[in-house]
């Protein structure tokens, strides 16, 4: 496996952008600037970025409630994302989706999903489109260890297997489904080996090592593009924040959290590329600075953007529908 320099820079930039975005969102949320609630992806950057590095805008992904990282890795504009989290008219979903449904179909991002296990069947559909139209596009289904126990996930894996769909199932096992340890909720707590039940390769990957994810995902995606069928990757990583921002995460110990930080995906990446002289400290620092600027600008953009007018509530329900039947009756 070789990774061209430009792609190494891209990988670092995307991981840094996700981290900076999530850390800022955490602050903004704590400061009461964001309505609703947010689920943060910090700590899991290597998975989204290592996978999406192999995708184009014509490939599709389905995501989870923890979807900001997938959006950024798929190239969704961070200004429009931040505005969406604020509920502003300039949001990528015009303020109608929010954090939990953030999406950009033009970028192949089929949405964060408020329903755990909502995405896997949809990913099969995206794969079915590619197969039916004879393209070499693929669909990647990100799902968590919690969703691994949903029937939809199993149905989707089976469907993808019998139809040999170009779908890669990426289980982000961050060890807890909300507050419940995966060792409790999973009878075979090796999600990767469930692939055997669906006659597809199942691989356990270190989800804190972007090189490991990049390599395994590259193989799985190439396999899907060759019409050889689906793959299940289980990537283990840690989420630095709680299930949602504000969750005190009392179900984890301080030592446990400290041990996560020792395997920080961004630091590991830095260490590798610096020790090998692939990228320079100056280059990485410059990316850090530009990422910080991008986030500052995104916040500025979001804060100065207008809220949508109330009537906006009544649009985008359908492509065509009598307007008077969408409105209040009185």
């Amino acid at each position, binding site marked *: 496996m070789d990774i061209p320099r430009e792609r190494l820079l891209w990988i670092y930039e995307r991981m840094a952008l996700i981290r900076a975005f999530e850390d800022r969102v955490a602050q903004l949320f704590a400061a009461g600037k964001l309505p609703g609630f947010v689920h943060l992806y910090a700590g899991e950057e290597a998975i989204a970025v290592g996978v999406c590095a192999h995708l184009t805008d014509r490939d599709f992904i389905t995501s989870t409630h923890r979807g900001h990282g997938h959006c950024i890795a798929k190239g969704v504009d961070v200004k429009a994302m931040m505005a969406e989290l604020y509920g502003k008219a300039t949001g990528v979903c015009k303020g109608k989706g929010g954090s939990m449904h953030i999406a950009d*179909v033009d970028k192949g991002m089929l949405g964060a999903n408020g329903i755990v296990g909502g995405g896997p069947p949809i990913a099969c559909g995206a794969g079915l489109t590619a197969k039916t139209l004879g393209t070499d596009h693929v669909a990647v289904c990100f799902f968590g260890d919690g969703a691994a126990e949903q029937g939809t996930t199993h149905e989707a894996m089976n*469907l993808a297997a019998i139809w040999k769909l170009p779908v890669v199932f990426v289980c982000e096992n961050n060890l807890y489904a909300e507050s419940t340890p995966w060792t409790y909720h999973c009878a075979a707590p090796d999600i990767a080996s469930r692939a055997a039940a669906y006659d597809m390769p199942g691989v356990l990957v270190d989800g804190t090592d972007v090189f490991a994810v990049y390599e395994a995902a590259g193989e799985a995606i190439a396999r899907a593009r060759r019409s050889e069928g689906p793959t299940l990757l289980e990537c283990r990583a840690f989420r630095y924040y709680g299930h949602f921002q504000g969750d005190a995460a009392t179900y984890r110990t301080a030592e446990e959290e400290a041990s996560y930080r020792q395997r920080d995906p961004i630091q590991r990446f830095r260490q590798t590329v610096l020790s090998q002289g692939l990228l320079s400290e100056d280059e990485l620092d410059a990316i850090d600075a530009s990422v910080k600027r991008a986030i500052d600008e995104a916040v500025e953009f979001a804060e100065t953007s207008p809220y949508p007018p109330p009537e906006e509530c009544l649009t985008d329900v359908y492509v*065509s529908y009598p307007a008077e039947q969408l409105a209040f009756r009185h």
Partner: protein
Amino acid sequence: MVVATRVLSYRQAINEALRLEMRRDPTVILMGEDVAGGATVEHIEQEGAWGGPLGVTKSLVSEFGRQRVLDTPISEAGFIGAAVGAAVTGLRPVAELMFVDFFGVCMDQIFNQGAKLRYMFGGKAKVPMVIRTMIGAGFGAAGQHSGCHYSVFAHMPGLKAVAPATPYDAKGLLIAAIRDDDPVMFFEHKMLYDVTGEVPEGDYIVPLGKADIKRQGSDVTIVAISRMVHVALQAAERLAVEGIDAEVVDLRTLSPLDEDTVLSSLAKTRRMVVVDEDNPRCSVAADIAALAVDKGFDYLDAPVKLVTAPHTPVPFSPPLEQFYIPSPERVIAAVREIV
């Protein structure tokens, strides 16, 4: 232009709509349990086995192949969700939910995903999918294979709901539903499959959201849905003998609702009975009554009467099932109360 018509059954009309749309548009695919049947069984791989449990999709696989007529595992959440995903990414899937009663196992994919994606994505997505599903009692199929339940779907923003009563409407509405860019629930009453009627050759559209006056009348408006249109028509014929001239409005589409046709009929007759095989609470029938009271209050000379199924599941035993289904007698009795 003279368009040739023939007599087709409701089943044949639906089959023809699917066939024409699949010929016209290569992105239209069918998927569902046994829509072809016998997948991978060598001697019927070409022509399929069942063509749907009641043969509605029969022989489509011979023309379009297994790539476009997809037998699915019995995984409704999986394949209905796949239809959603396929629709968002460029196909026009027609998924078959064998019986509407099975919505319980896949509702999330229908109403949380399919129905809401466009809205949640700020209008960036289109979900041009159709879910064909069988409704209705009369088959002795009891509690889990006999409901109507379209009211549940008509209630949900993001979905359209269509329930044809005749072969002509079934074909035209299904073509319209397939070409529509929104997710459409298409309710086929299993007791109507053998009903026949004139159906033009070639493609034509019955627009979604347009009701149809199936019988002109002046004394009372009977609004009916799906199989109940036929019950209403029978009642109207018998009422005519008594000198009561009933107008029968076939709603055809439940969402959006053709309020204008309903209200203008009411303005003409000033009396209304709604006949609906669905359960009565929060139903389309109740919604029509609310419409009459809200926007047609000044037209009303009498209370609006609802003739619906009772608030029970569908029973098995034949006399119980017959009791459950609204009959012409009950419609006549309701009309007599207000005329």
